[in-house]
Structures are given as structure tokens and as C-alpha cells.
């Protein structure tokens, strides 16, 4: 069986009338951590949204192949149930639905199996401790009144609980202090194994200091302009993107 988890082939994506992605090629194997870096407006977030087929974006050409299947036109929830997860840059607030109930419900939808409540709560508690989260947040409405850092940690908590095959982290590190970034990295390490993969979208390097990254892709103006290893990230940290801009 192929080891490829997901492949983007010449993917073109519009937001409204405007073309954002202009032919992206990207292949992620199981067991790998990939990073997409790039200046603002280069199409990083669009890439994440296009994989999950957010209806706000339109694919005009190319394919998203996940585990050998073209998932271009599947609905976001169908893609999620196949094992793709996205941590949002700006997580939504859902008043009246507690973190626990939300995750229990989502887990049931993802696995298709009933959730054993006591086991589930223990698991939740364990992850929250690892992520330095206040256990009281379990009973609070999802993301309502959470600080920026709490929201991001809550995204990582969801990743751990829902245990996807591909986790896309869209600027999960932005706006976080050093300690919180370390916690997020720890969450990624806990999650990571040889059967899943992580795609980290970031425009700074800090999150990469604590992680062993396999590939770094630089995205400029809707195209991958270069791909390298961790050293590429360090180079960009020192010299910026100007070299890659036209």
C-alpha cells in the first residue's frame, strides 16, 4: 500500500473572483511533519481551507487526493470523517455548548461509535493537564470568553481527542507567547506517530524550534517556490522572503 496520505496536484483555488492558489503541488506521507511558510497573502490559509473544501473557496483546477481518492468535491464533514483535521486561526465561539459535550458529539460523529463517557472524560482531563489547560474549561461554552491562547490550546485538545490522520494547523502559533508555543509543540509531539501526518502553516519559526520537521515549503503568490528541510526555515528566519519574491 502506498505511504502517501495526501497529495495536492496542480491545485488552483479562487476566493470569490480572485485566484489565490495558482497551481500547488504537495505530497505528504504518513509519519511526516510538513511546514508551509510564506508571506501574508501568499495562500497558506487558502490551502488549508481548500483541503477541507470550505464552500467560501472554489477549486478551479487540479486535485486533492487523499488516501488515493479525489476528495475535491466532498463536504467538509465527510472529509473530516475520513480523518482530516484543521486547527483554525480564529476558532469560532459556540454559546451554550460545553467543550465536553461538543467533543463528545464530534468524536461520535468522527468514529461512528458511541462514546464511553467516563473513559472519555478521563482522556479529556489527561490531555488538558498536558496542555496546561484549566480543567474548568471543560464545562465552559466552546471558545466563549476564552483568551487567544486558550482557544489555540483548545484546538490542539480537539486534535488529540479526535485523533485524525492528517492534522492541519493553520497559524496555531500566531499570537502565542513562548510558553504557549512550547505547549502546542508538546501537543503535536503527543499526537504524532508513524501512521499520521501534520501540516503546519506558519509565518514564523518559533514553533519549529521544538519540533523535528521533515519538509519546509515556501509559498509565494499561490505557488510553492521552494522546498527544503529545517535549515530552509532557519534561512528564512534570518533573511525573510524577499529572495523568493519576484
Amino acid at each position: 500500500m502506498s505511504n502517501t496520505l495526501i497529495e495536492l496536484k496542480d491545485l488552483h483555488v479562487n476566493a470569490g473572483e480572485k485566484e489565490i492558489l495558482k497551481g500547488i503541488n504537495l505530497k505528504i506521507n504518513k509519519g511526516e511533519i510538513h511546514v508551509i511558510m510564506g508571506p501574508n497573502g501568499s495562500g497558506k490559509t487558502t490551502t488549508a481551507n481548500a483541503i477541507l473544501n470550505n464552500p467560501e473557496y472554489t477549486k478551479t483546477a487540479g486535485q486533492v487526493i487523499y488516501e488515493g481518492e479525489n476528495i475535491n468535491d466532498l463536504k467538509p464533514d465527510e472529509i473530516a470523517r475520513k480523518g482530516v483535521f484543521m486547527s483554525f486561526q480564529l476558532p469560532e465561539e459556540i454559546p451554550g455548548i460545553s467543550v465536553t459535550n461538543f467533543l463528545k458529539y464530534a468524536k461520535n460523529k468522527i468514529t461512528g461509535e458511541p462514546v464511553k463517557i467516563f473513559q472519555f472524560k478521563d482522556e479529556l482531563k489527561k490531555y488538558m493537564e498536558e496542555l496546561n489547560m484549566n480543567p474548568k474549561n471543560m464545562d465552559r461554552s466552546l471558545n466563549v470568553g476564552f483568551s487567544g491562547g486558550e482557544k489555540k490550546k483548545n484546538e490542539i485538545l480537539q486534535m488529540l481527542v479526535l485523533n485524525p490522520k492528517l492534522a492541519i494547523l493553520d497559524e496555531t502559533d500566531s499570537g502565542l507567547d513562548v510558553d504557549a508555543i512550547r505547549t502546542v509543540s508538546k501537543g503535536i509531539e503527543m499526537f504524532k506517530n508513524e501512521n499520521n501526518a501534520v501540516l503546519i502553516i506558519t509565518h514564523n519559526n518559533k514553533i519549529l524550534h521544538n519540533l523535528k520537521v521533515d519538509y519546509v515549503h515556501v509559498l509565494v503568490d499561490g505557488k510553492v517556490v521552494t522546498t527544503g528541510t529545517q535549515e530552509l526555515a532557519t534561512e528564512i528566519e534570518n533573511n525573510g522572503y524577499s529572495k523568493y519574491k519576484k
Partner: protein
Amino acid sequence: MAKTQVEEINRNVYDIVDKDNYDFKIEKGITKEIVEEISKQKNDPEWMREFRLKALEVYNKLEMPTWGPDLSELNMDEIATYVRPKTKLNNSWDDVPEDIKNTFDRLGIPEAEKKSLAGVGAQYDSEVVYHSMKEDLKKQGVIYTDMETAIREYPDLVKQYFMKCVPVNDHKFVALHGAVWSGGSFVYVPKNVKLDFPLQSYFRLNSPESGQFEHTLIIVEEGASLHFIEGCSAPKYSKINLHAGCVELIVKDNAYLRYSTIENWSKNMMNLNTKKAMIGKNAQVDWVTGSFGSKISMLYPLSQLNGEGAKTEYTGISFAGEGQNLDTGFKAIHNAPNTSSVVNAKSISKNGGKCTYRSLIKISPKAKGSKSSVSCESLMLDDISVSDTIPVNDIQTDEVEFSHEAKIGKISDKTIFYLMSRGLSEEDAKAMIVRGFAYPISKELPVEYAVEMNNLINLELEGTIG
């Protein structure tokens, strides 16, 4: 705890139509002869017969409401105002006739009684068919019975309060109620008696082209405490049914009453209901209401804060779907110093449904030091649904704290995408957002009702995604 995962229920539970198997059904329309006949059929005492006829005169004089939803589809000549089921009042569930018993069994009554209630009443069409209460409460002097029994056995109490709180000239449908009322519950809680468990009355209208006019009168004496729950439903018919009940709550000094309602009338029902509470010194009345059914509802419970330090809270939600116009809200009249009212009203509309929040907060000159805070929030699930807020605030003294907050919103596509990225279908995502929106209300309901409310939300949202 987990209210998000509820079993699917079948709308059919509410919609199963029993055979229109009445003992007596009055001819349609509203005339003096009809009112006389109802009075005769009910063996009214003379004072009640006279009361009905006077109410009819008032009814004939009063105009239809000129504001609010269009009531032109209601033709009183097509409504039978009294339908007696084929049974007497039973004190044992076993004695209730099989078909009626099956109906209530399907609705979970009196199963509810066994679990967590102090007493249960059940009305079928125009008469109460079952009433029971725990023995120890009887010993403490608590009375919980149908209104007809109350008139016979406690005539002085009933005469003292019956339609004093809500006078027959209040509006046209109260006058109609006064003329043809039948059934309902009478509750009397003596001084300092506190009921640990709720009493629950359930009202079922089965007969087509008919009306239900139950009268609920509750007296909570000084320092006493009660939670009363009412539920109502009806199967759907193609022609209009009418509900014009009346609820009168007398809550004396230092007493407490919580009045919870889950209303799920069928969508051919005109629900023109009247509820009012008179609240004494340092006493409190809390209203908790979920309105899901009916074609048209006009219902604005009123709390009259008559004693110093009296309090009231209104927590309500309405959910209007296709063809529904739910005009609901709350009225508080502050008549004494240091009184307080808190309103938390929510509405949800979808598929062209219309929800209007209509309210009156009146603070009289003598109500110095009073507080009132109103919050109303509406959620529209699509572009064709309508939501409106019509608050009237009449503040006649400066020494008050008053706040009013209104929010009208829609479910954002971003929120739906977020939830879908967690494996929820679009329908699940919307239902979750709506359940969350309704949660501040559902958490105030007894747990069985909260579950029922979530079931109703899920039902209402089924098939909304094209």
C-alpha cells in the same frame, strides 16, 4: 450534563389522532343558548351560570385585537367550545378509558408522575380526566384538583379569586374564556408549606374544530413554595382549533412560585392565552416558557409586583417554522418600591416563520428603587424568516435601574464550516448552534422537558437543508 445527544423522536407522537369519540360535543358557534347549554352540561352553580352570561355580553361588546398577528382565519361559528370526553374524572390511572390512556401514555404521562412529581393532572378536550397527588401533601392541606371539583368543594376560595386577577373585560378572548371555560387546575398551597417536587398538568386537545378553555387558578399562601408545570399538545387538523386558556396566580408575601410551560400545539391552533400573576411582598414568581407549536400565538404573561421587594423573572423561548406567527413576550408592572423584573427572551425562526417579542415594562411612581433588566435575542436560520422586537417601556420614576438589550442574529457560514470540519453535517451543525442558543432556557426546565425541547429542536431542524 449531556443534553446534546438525545434520541430521535417521532413527530407522530403528537400527531396521532384519536377517533373523535366524545360523550357530548356542543354545536359550533358562540351564542347565549350555547353558553347556557354548556353551563347546564357542567352543572354549574347559579353564580357561575350568571358569570358566564355576563362574560358573553362583554365578549359581544369587545372588538378583535387590532394589533399583532392576523386572526381573520378564526371563525367562531366553526368552533365547538365544549367537548366532553367519554369518561368522568378519575383518581386512578387504571380507570381512564383505554384510548385516552394510550394518548397520554404516548406523551409520557403519567410516567413522569412516578419519577419526580408531587402530583399530576390530565385534561382531554374540555374536561380533566385524571388527577392525583401524593398523600402527604393532602395531609398538609395542599389542594390540587380540577376547577369543577374546586367550585363544588371550595366555593368560597374559588369565588374570592376566580377571574379577579384577570378580569373578563381584559380582552375579547378572556371574555370568551369566561363564557365557555371548562377544565383546568386549581392549586392551593397553605401558609409555609413548601413542595419539594413539582405538580404537573397536561392539556390535550383531540377534537377537530373545537376549542380548549381551561382555567388554572393557583394560590400560594404566605411563605409557601411551589413549582407548577403545564404541558400542552394537539394533533394536526386541516381546520382551525382555538386555545384560549386563562392562568391566574396569586402569590402572597414571601411565597415562591415557578410556572413552567412547554407548549407544542399543532400548527392549526390559534393560541390566544392569558396568564397573570399577582405578587406580594418579598414574593417571587418565575416564568419559564418554551413555545414551539401553534399557527398563531399571542401570549404575554404578566407579573404584577404589588408588594415591596417582589421579584419576577421571565425566561422564554419561541421557535417558529413555516406558516407560524408567534407573538409572545412578557409584561411586568412594578407597583411597589424595590421590586425587580428580569427578562431573558429568545426566539428562533426558520422557513419563513415569524417571531415577535412584545413586552411592556411599567414602573409606577411609587415603585422607587426598582430594577428591571430585559434581554432579548433572536436567531434567524435563513433569509425568509422574520424576527421583530416591540418593547414598550413606561418608566414613571427616576429612581430605578433599567436596562434593555436586543440582539438579532443569523448563523454564520464560518461557524457552520468550523463545526463541519469536526465531522458534523450541516444539519447537525445548525441543530447544535440552535441547542446552544436555547440552552439558557432549557437548563431552567425540568430535565424531561429539557430533553423534549431538544428533541423538538432536532425535529424542527430535520430536513431544513435542501
